[in-house]
């Protein structure tokens, strides 16, 4: 049985890529844009860094290629799309769960500012 344990905790780059792909299949530039948007510009990922991360994630089996097709929003050039695998989704959920536990713990200990 496959386990997601060794992948947790995820690096910020991997986490935001998984977050971007959680909504659906995306190609490289879409992932870049989504990561920047989701992290509110805190995680900036260039082309080199993006594909370095994608390579590791493909090897770890958390993402997979979803084939080539044109991006309707850009032009008719074909792009390679990526998707989450089951293992990737489990890793993503496990990481979210970990974040939730951390937030819950911080709330219990009143580390987080109370909503006014």
């Amino acid at each position, binding site marked *: 049985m496959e386990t997601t344990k060794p992948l947790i905790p995820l690096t910020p780059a991997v986490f935001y890529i998984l977050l971007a792909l959680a909504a659906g299949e995306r*190609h*490289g530039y879409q992932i*870049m844009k989504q990561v920047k948007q989701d992290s509110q510009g805190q995680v900036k990922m260039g*082309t080199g860094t993006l*594909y*370095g991360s994608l390579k590791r994630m493909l090897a770890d089996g958390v993402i997979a290629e979803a084939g080539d097709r044109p991006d309707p929003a*850009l032009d008719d050039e074909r792009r*390679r799309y990526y998707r989450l695998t089951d293992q990737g989704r489990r890793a993503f959920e496990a990481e979210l769960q970990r974040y939730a536990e951390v937030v819950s713990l911080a709330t219990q200990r009143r580390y987080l500012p109370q909503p006014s």
Partner: protein
Amino acid sequence: MRPTRRDDAHQRATRVYRWIVRLYPAAYRRLFGEQMLQTFHDHYRDTVASRKESETRFWFGVIADEMKALPRARLVTMQETWHRWTLAASVAQDRQEAISMTMFRPRLRRYWYLYLVALLLILSVATLYGVRKESTYESTASLFVTKQTIIKNLGGTDENVFATTAQNVSDQMAQLLQSSSFLKSVAQDTSLNVNHSLDDPSPQTADLGLTPAQGAAVSRIAGNITVSANQTRNLVFITSDDKDARVAQELAGGVVTEFTKFYAKKEQVTLKSAQDALNQQLKDTQEKLTKDTQAQNDYASKYPKVKDPLAAAADPNYQTLVNQVKADLDAQTSIQSDLGQIASQLTQANAGVPYDLTPQDVATLPRQQTVKASKAMVYPLGALVGVLALLAIIAGIQTKLDRKVYSRQDIEGILDKMEWDPTAVEVMPIISTNGGRGSISWEDRENSPVPALMTPVLASLPRPARKQLRSGTTQAPRRESRAEPARSTSYIDEEP
């Protein structure tokens, strides 16, 4: 339609980025090269082309990102390659196989011409350097050696009786050339002694050793003077070489001058000793002559009949006495003659001119440089040895590292992780070598009955099984069958 300036900039940016992508490892480029270009193209169009960001800012971000990503990609690829090597070597297990699994040998085989060109280049550079460094001017002088018959007969020399006179002189000279004080004297006779810089400043300093200038001059000429003897013609040749033609000429002449002085002094001692010995012999002979003459006279007084020549000739005792006196007189004459000769030689030696040595050929000014082939060859040979040693070290290190053996569990784990199925070679990244075994190469894998990637595994199988697999008469080994005794024990060492 004419392309706009913006289109030109876009194309130029894509060209620049294509060059950056070329810096990535080949395997990496095959996987992501086109995608990276497409993503860059999208990024550029969405930021610079749509004026959301300045071109300078865009490129600053790209370069900063590539400076992080590129070394990481290289490192990761190296690690992966290394991992494949170690795994292949572990699977192959056998030492020869392990060596062939390294990247070095397959690369050497595939790119042999590049290695050959590099080797030839290194050898050419080393040869040129050697030729340039060992090209010197060479000058030769010679000395004629006469035979020291008288002294030799008297046993007054310490020379090797089994060697010719010229050989003895040559040996003495070679021994002297090992002495730094002799070399200093030679250097003082040459133009190296600029402004008398090599002259001894004071007796105290000379006793303590060489001055820095003298030391430098001695270092320059040490080993550059060779001596040889011509056995049949009693000639001794002095050959000197130097970067400066004039110095080369002066060195050979200097050696002749200094050795002649040295030899004259030596002859003085030898001749004086011989003279003393001859004087003693003369004295002894004269005493004997007096004694023998007295004995003859006494006999004649006792037997007056011997005054008659006929009677004297008939008396054997008297004849013996007469012969004895005659022999004494002959010996006296001979010794006196030798003494005269030695006195003459001694006079010559005292004047600093050795009796037994005569300069034959004077050193001439060399016109052309000479390459010392034996010395010049040392450089390319050294380079060759160096290159081979380096290759051996690389191969040795790789082999040693590749021989790091995984335990059975390790290999099982790695193969599991790889989802290895020998029939689906595309997903078995054990090794990406060409011809890990025999003539099977990466390019030929499609046409080969046995995929190249399986070579390390095949190598570990018993020979008949390999044959069968190569000929395609049996199926490739499946992962499940690795537990079969014939194979499982042959390619994995159980670590304790």
